[in-house]
């Protein structure tokens, strides 16, 4: 299914033109910068419409099978479409848990019936997906999840609490990790993975107000919620394995995601542009040698990640630690993103103390809001500290704590 360079370049022109014609204008209200920031119906409907449009035009799920709503072409096309979306600063394709986690999983290990039931509706944003992994007392230690799912005839009865459920209040389905056997020798063996319905009695998602003052997550309470036994995926007791596979999609270590942007793109170049008007000690800040050095280091780090994404495909250059680049990508990228935003705010001088809503704030407060939000990525999906443990153990072969 490999495509010629010419085909790909023609495609780039086509998709770029389509985006230029169809990219929505400023909606007049604050849009989410990442999929973890969808806080109200207005934002939701706007993003749902954009994702539907993107998919209808054939620029989402391009590498997913045709029979389930995908495009059935090489992933190279989707990569180009994503690059063009980034370049044009389009809104995000917000249904990320579906597009990037549940979808690839169902594609890889789901039954025919599950593929038919779920995949197309993930792409079209008719169904919104959320994820139920973390619990109030078990964040990074996911294997210790205590939310219970007890078998009762054709159903499981779920009791417990999940937290950091992105769009939990809007979602139709949840990928749920729950404990089906409370007393196993290894804590991991008692876990089962479900493709669970959300709009049923006994599930109560309560929005959490984030450090930005906005919403986007819920704490999700399960009280005798009954989900069908057929919603188990990967088999009872195999939940840990399935969850790990799912995390590989998220951490970028496995392919299969439908594509689309999961965050508003920005770059060190844009940060530098935002600073051109800032003064320090009576001179333009970009003439300050220390600031210059920090900016150059940021540019280098940004480029390291982009080049790593290319080097990862060259096996001869990954012989020492074949899993190093894919397994460390989340850590490198999210820490870079956070550090860059921190720097951007720090370099604004007095302006750094302003926030979204002030007339004088630089770039509408983008950098401030984005910095506060950036922690969702260094914490969510396994904190940076846990990522470092994983890399140490799986890539370098260091002993567990």
């Amino acid at each position: 299914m490999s495509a010629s360079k010419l085909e790909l370049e023609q495609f780039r022109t086509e998709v770029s033109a389509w985006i230029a014609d169809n990219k929505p204008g400023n909606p007049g209200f604050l849009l989410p910068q990442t999929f973890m920031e969808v806080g109200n119906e207005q934002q939701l409907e706007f993003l749902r419409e954009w994702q539907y449009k993107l998919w209808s035009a054939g620029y989402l799920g391009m590498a997913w099978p045709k029979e389930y709503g995908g495009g059935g072409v090489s992933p190279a096309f989707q990569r180009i479409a994503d690059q063009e979306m980034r370049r044009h600063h389009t809104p995000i394709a917000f249904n990320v848990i579906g597009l990037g986690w549940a979808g690839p999983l169902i594609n890889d290990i789901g039954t025919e019936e599950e593929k038919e039931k779920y995949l197309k509706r993930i792409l079209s944003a008719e169904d919104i997906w959320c994820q139920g992994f973390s619990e109030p007392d078990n964040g990074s230690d996911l294997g210790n999840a205590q939310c219970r799912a007890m078998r009762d005839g054709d159903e499981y009865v779920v009791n417990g609490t999940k937290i950091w459920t992105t769009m939990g209040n809007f979602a139709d389905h949840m990928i749920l990790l729950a404990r089906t056997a409370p007393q196993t020798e290894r804590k991991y063996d008692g876990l089962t993975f479900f493709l669970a319905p959300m709009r049923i009695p006994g599930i109560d998602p309560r929005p959490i107000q984030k450090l930005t003052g906005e919403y986007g997550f819920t704490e999700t309470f399960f009280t005798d919620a009954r989900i069908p036994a057929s919603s188990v995926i990967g088999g009872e007791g195999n939940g840990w394995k399935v969850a790990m596979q799912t995390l590989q999609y998220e951490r970028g270590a496995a392919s299969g995601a439908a594509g689309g942007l999961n965050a508003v793109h920005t770059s060190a170049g844009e940060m530098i542009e935002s600073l051109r008007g800032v003064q320090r000690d009576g001179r333009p800040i970009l003439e300050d040698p220390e600031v210059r050095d920090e900016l150059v280091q940021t540019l280098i780090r940004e480029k390291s990640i982009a080049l790593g994404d290319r080097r990862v495909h060259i096996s001869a250059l990954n012989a020492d630690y074949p899993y190093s680049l894919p397994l460390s990508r989340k850590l490198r990228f999210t820490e870079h993103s956070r550090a860059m935003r921190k720097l951007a705010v720090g370099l604004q001088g007095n302006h750094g103390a302003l926030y979204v809503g002030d007339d004088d704030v630089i770039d509408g407060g983008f950098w401030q809001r984005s910095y506060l939000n950036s922690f969702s990525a260094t914490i969510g999906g396994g904190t940076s500290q846990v990522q470092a443990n994983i890399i140490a153990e799986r890539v370098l072969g260091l002993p567990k704590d």
Partner: protein
Amino acid sequence: MNAEAKPITHNLTMDFSEEQAMVLEQARQFCGEKSPIPSVRNLLDSVSGFDAAVWEEQVQLGWMGLAIPEAYGGLGLGISCSVPVAEAMGKNLLTTPFIASTLAAQAILRGGDEWQREQWLPGLATGTVASLALLDDGDWGGSLCEAEVVRRNDEYILSGQKWFVAHGATAEFFVVSARCEGSTVLAVVSAEQVTKNESQVLIDETQRAAKISFDQVNLSSSAILSQADTDGLLADLCLLGALLTAAEAAGSAIACLETVVEYLNIRKQFGRLIGSYQALKHPTVEILNAVDSARSHIYHAAGLLGSDALDNDAEIACRMAKVLATDAICYAGDRAIQFHGGMGFTYECNAQLYLRRAQWSQQYYGDSRHHRTRLARILLDNSE
């Protein structure tokens, strides 16, 4: 924000050819066999710093000809194929005149006329040791042209002093940068013509370099490389030197990382393997990430090099590669000593080899700050 993403670092080329892959594999195997740590240590106090037999084998394998065109007895694969060799040598702390002679050959190839190329390149392809003599004192950011050539009719008279001339004691000739009537020249000077050739005591005991000086040395006009844009050529040679040094440093950083990981997996304290402590684990992951980033930039840079003058993207790439590789080996070497505890403080522990290598790689062809300062000018000052 309305600004279009400004493509400051838009070139993300990552081409790694079949030839480069073959060279990398062969070089890694060769260096692994020929340069185990005991052999490295045996050479530390030798005069030449390298094993003549191993050098001869490298020459036989064609490595000196990799970046020399076939017309002059080389393999014509280009300088991008020399990069993996430098990395493999760095990984095994194997130090021969490979980098020095490769760079000297690049000077003649890029700067010489037909006669000059024919005069020197075939010898270099078959193992003649030569070296660049560029640095006037301790500052890679200086003009590199404080040596002076005075022209008298058809004769050129060279005076000056050069530092850190790699393998200065072994080299048969040098390519020397100097100022002549207001412009930059590169002159080929044979070892016999050098007035004083003093080996320097280096922190990295695997490397060899000399301070060489010239007092009214007579050169014929054919010794002056004929390239018109000698300033550009000199800048390019510095970038190529930075890239090969970066590759060597990245290789050493990988080996240093392996040394750390090995120790963290055998040393026990308080009843636990010390590698299980996050205080040691996390910085070790930082070393890994630093090496990964450096290697991405190094092979990106290598892919941008051809036989032409280096363009802006290639300059950015070489400088970034040097920054990251230098920082990686400096961090790795520093942490390697610390993580080996008391053992790390001994000469016997191999960690010192890497820490010393780090200090060499750091300064050679410009340290990290030097390159970042230059990058700032390129990346921050070209507003529309």
